[in-house]
């Protein structure tokens, strides 16, 4: 597969890993945060963790939109289905995330809720057109990669004057979350592997202020394992020479300014929320998007007068600490016993890119 296989070559990987091991200074600890859940997944799936020297650790970041979506927002969506009989269109990733009271979209569907898994936001438009007498709500989640498709769909729906369609917007932003993690200084982070596809949208410049303010090197890493290894080496070299810069390893896709057309579409249809609750990180200012006034008629929160719902997290679940990179999944009392992918207690165990799921599926009980 073009642009995939070449970036997964094993021999090159071993050479890169040998270089990393060789250049890691003895007596020095390297704590590198891979911000993006997709990178967490890659690190485990390809066994990159095992190729690293003992003094280099990956600290898992909050870049998993499923993991940081507050349970209350899922509860609110279930309420829409059960009280307003809407057709709720969602990406499959959200289906089994625990909401409140041991509930989930999956369970609500089993109870008869009309919840449909879609691959693309445009599929939700199709469902709305095919069911003119039903209200259709698109449960929009994701960081900046997944936001432009929502913006596109808002524009299309507006132009079509689609009356039975609305969007429940939960889009969140990467640089504020990154700044929050670095600001809290709960855990020492020596460098950050920046997200691949978020960066293709927002551009490498978007990380400049974070890098400067917290004096932390950031390397925007491609999605494939060789990209991750090469970026790790680039971070190592910055750290060893006392530099802190934004470097772009994923040049085949990421530019300094990003995808300006996508950004314009987002600006046109969405606007910043003052505050937004992030599961595990608390309420962050200027960190999430809502639908702009000009498209208010497509805003599910307004159409259905949706209220915030407080949900108590599972006692013993340490997803918040895992998301902030403060704890590893196996430090959690529930990990692997009470909390498993079959019966998850927290979002980090459900999402395929949650750190807990990665630890459980790929890395537990190493022989």
């Amino acid at each position, binding site marked *: 597969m073009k642009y995939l296989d070449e970036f997964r070559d094993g021999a090159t990987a071993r050479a890169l890993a*040998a270089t990393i091991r060789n250049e890691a200074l003895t007596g020095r600890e390297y704590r590198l945060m891979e911000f993006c859940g997709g990178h967490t997944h890659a690190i485990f799936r390809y066994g990159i963790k095992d190729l690293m020297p003992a003094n280099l650790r990956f600290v898992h970041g909050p870049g998993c939109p499923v993991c940081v979506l507050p349970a209350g927002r899922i509860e609110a969506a279930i309420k829409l289905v059960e009280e307003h009989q809407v057709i709720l269109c969602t990406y499959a990733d959200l289906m089994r995330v625990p909401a409140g009271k041991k509930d989930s979209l999956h369970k609500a569907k089993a109870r008869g809720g009309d919840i449909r898994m879609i691959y693309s936001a445009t599929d939700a438009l199709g469902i709305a057109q095919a069911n003119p007498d039903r209200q259709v709500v698109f449960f929009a989640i994701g960081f900046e990669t997944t936001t432009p498709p929502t913006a596109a769909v808002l524009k299309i729906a507006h132009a079509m004057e689609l009356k039975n369609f609305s969007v429940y917007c939960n889009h969140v932003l990467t640089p504020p979350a990154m700044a929050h993690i670095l600001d809290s200084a709960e855990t020492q982070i020596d460098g950050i592997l920046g997200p691949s596809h978020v960066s293709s949208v927002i551009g490498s410049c978007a990380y400049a202020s974070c890098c400067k303010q917290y004096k932390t090197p950031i390397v925007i890493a491609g999605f494939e394992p060789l990209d991750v290894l090469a970026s790790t080496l680039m971070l190592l070299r910055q750290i060893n020479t006392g530099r802190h810069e934004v470097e772009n390893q994923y040049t085949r896709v990421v530019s300094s300014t990003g995808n300006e057309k996508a950004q314009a579409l987002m600006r046109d249809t969405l606007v910043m929320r003052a505050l937004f609750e992030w599961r595990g990180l608390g309420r962050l200012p200027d960190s999430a998007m809502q639908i702009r006034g000009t498209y208010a008629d497509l805003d599910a929160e307004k159409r259905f007068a949706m209220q915030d719902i407080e949900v108590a997290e599972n006692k013993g679940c340490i997803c918040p600490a895992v998301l902030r990179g403060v704890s590893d999944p196996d430090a959690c009392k529930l990990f692997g016993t009470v909390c498993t992918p079959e019966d998850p207690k927290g979002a980090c165990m459900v999402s395929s890119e949650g750190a807990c799921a990665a630890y459980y599926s790929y890395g537990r009980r190493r022989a």
Partner: protein
Amino acid sequence: MCLAVPARIISLDSAANMAVVDLDGIRKETSTMLLDSVKVGDYVLLHVGFALEVINPDEAERTLAIFAEMRADAP
């Protein structure tokens, strides 16, 4: 955090902002609404039914060359 795969554009419907892409024999319709310009034969990053960005073949080659260099320099 976002699964995006490289796929090759095999046909375009510019008026509708749509394209058909090919990924090893799999064909899928995708929106090109997020791209300024794209042509048949380009490789794009496909994410939730949208082409997010065109993959720059020269930069891809450069990256592979960098890997090759790193590999040659490895201990």
